[in-house]
């Protein structure tokens, strides 16, 4: 296990190892999502106030939680990339950032869609939505910075610095937005409350959350492999791999 985390960790080994994991992730996420979304859409109770629109919850909340979790994961990868010069960590930042940005965007869109029936308007400067919006900016910054460098290794290092700066700032931004929100809106606008959860909501929610988490893992695996290939294109094992594929 330590060998795998060693600075000279072998990209070839990780490439094949991730390849073996992907089918498992696919299977688990499909099963969990079918089960979870089925329960959520068909069997969980409608809210007495929000009616059927409460079901957006099963997409919105997992997306929001994962969008923050992915940023945290990215920052941890960034730290290992900078401290131990681990090149695979750089590849994983490049693989994670667009996934995180997509989930942030999903959280924003579903939040807006949920807001429409509740507040009668698509956008409201709700603390949680505003934080998600700023998180999206932070993700887009990492992606844009990464794309701006020609050299993949430099791009990875620059993105690492930014991701760490971002993760230090994220709690401060989050707290300040929350505080700003209570200051300016008070109790006049009801916030996007997380419904209090009964068991028949909690179980589908947890199943959905894990389903999406495995979906993230699955997409990450695919992108991670692509990043490894892109960063090692001049290595003999990659060339051998390409030749073997051409023969088939």
């Amino acid at each position, binding site marked *: 296990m330590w060998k795998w985390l060693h600075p*000279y960790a072998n990209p070839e080994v990780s490439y094949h190892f991730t390849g073996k994991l992907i089918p498992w992730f696919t299977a688990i996420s499909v099963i969990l999502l079918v089960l979870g979304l089925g329960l959520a859409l068909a069997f969980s109770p409608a809210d007495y106030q929000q009616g059927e629109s409460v079901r957006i919850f099963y997409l919105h909340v997992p997306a929001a939680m994962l969008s923050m979790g992915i940023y945290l994961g990215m920052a941890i990868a960034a730290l290992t990339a900078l401290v131990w*010069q681990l090149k695979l960590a750089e590849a994983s930042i490049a693989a994670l950032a667009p996934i995180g940005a997509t989930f942030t965007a999903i959280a924003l869109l579903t939040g807006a869609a949920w807001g429409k029936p509740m507040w009668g308007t698509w956008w409201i400067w709700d603390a949680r939505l505003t934080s998600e919006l700023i998180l999206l900016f932070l993700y887009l910054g990492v992606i844009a910075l990464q794309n701006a460098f020609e*050299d993949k*290794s430099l791009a990875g290092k620059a993105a690492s610095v930014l991701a760490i700066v971002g993760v230090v700032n994220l709690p401060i931004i989050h707290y300040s937005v929350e505080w700003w929100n209570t200051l300016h809106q008070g109790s006049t606008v009801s916030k996007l409350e997380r419904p209090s959860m009964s068991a028949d909501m909690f179980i589908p929610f947890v199943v959905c959350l894990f389903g999406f988490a495995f979906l993230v893992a699955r997409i990450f695996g695919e992108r991670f492999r692509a990043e490894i290939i892109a960063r090692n294109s*001049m290595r*003999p094992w990659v060339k051998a791999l390409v030749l073997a594929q051409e023969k088939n």
Partner: protein
Amino acid sequence: MATQHSVLLAADKLTCIREDRLLFDQLSFDVSAGDIIQIEGANGTGKTSLLRILAGLSQPYDGEVLYKAENIHHCQEDYNSDLIFLGHLPGIKGEMTSEENLQFYLKLHGLDHSLAEQTLAEVSLFGFEDALASHLSAGQHRRIALARLWQSNSKIWILDEPFTAIDKAGVEKLEQLFLRHAKNGGAVILTTHQDLSIHSNDFKKIILEHQFI
């Protein structure tokens, strides 16, 4: 002739990859006190990359550079105070006079800056001390940068094309300075497209070639 002296700087299995191109692979060599080493190679073989890695400005893809048997990134302050690196860009501010430019670098390295005016005379910039650098030519900028060598007490000099835009007399003067520096226990690592007039057994060559894999 200098092999008896202590090793100042060592390259240990350096590998450099730039934009998916392998420039050099597992390159190792020692730089001892008294060495003058010329890095040779065609354009694009990684001469500048090698010098920047040796100076600690770039990270090698693999391998490390050792200063007195310690990784240069672990003893950066000690290494930097024993190093002068002059790259393609002279690092001269157009808004300051040539004397102020030189003084700034001398002060930054904790050296006596009162001799700046005299030192500028060494690189035939006598009379230009108070001229703003923006009014001077590229060759004169390079001379201001090179003037630091006359005042330096650093052992390791890493010079990327130091003779660019320098006239014949200037080149000769620099070569004399390199020899004196080597004799005093220093080391010079340089790239140049000109032939050095220094006698060939006074200096070593490291030749970089295009890599094909």
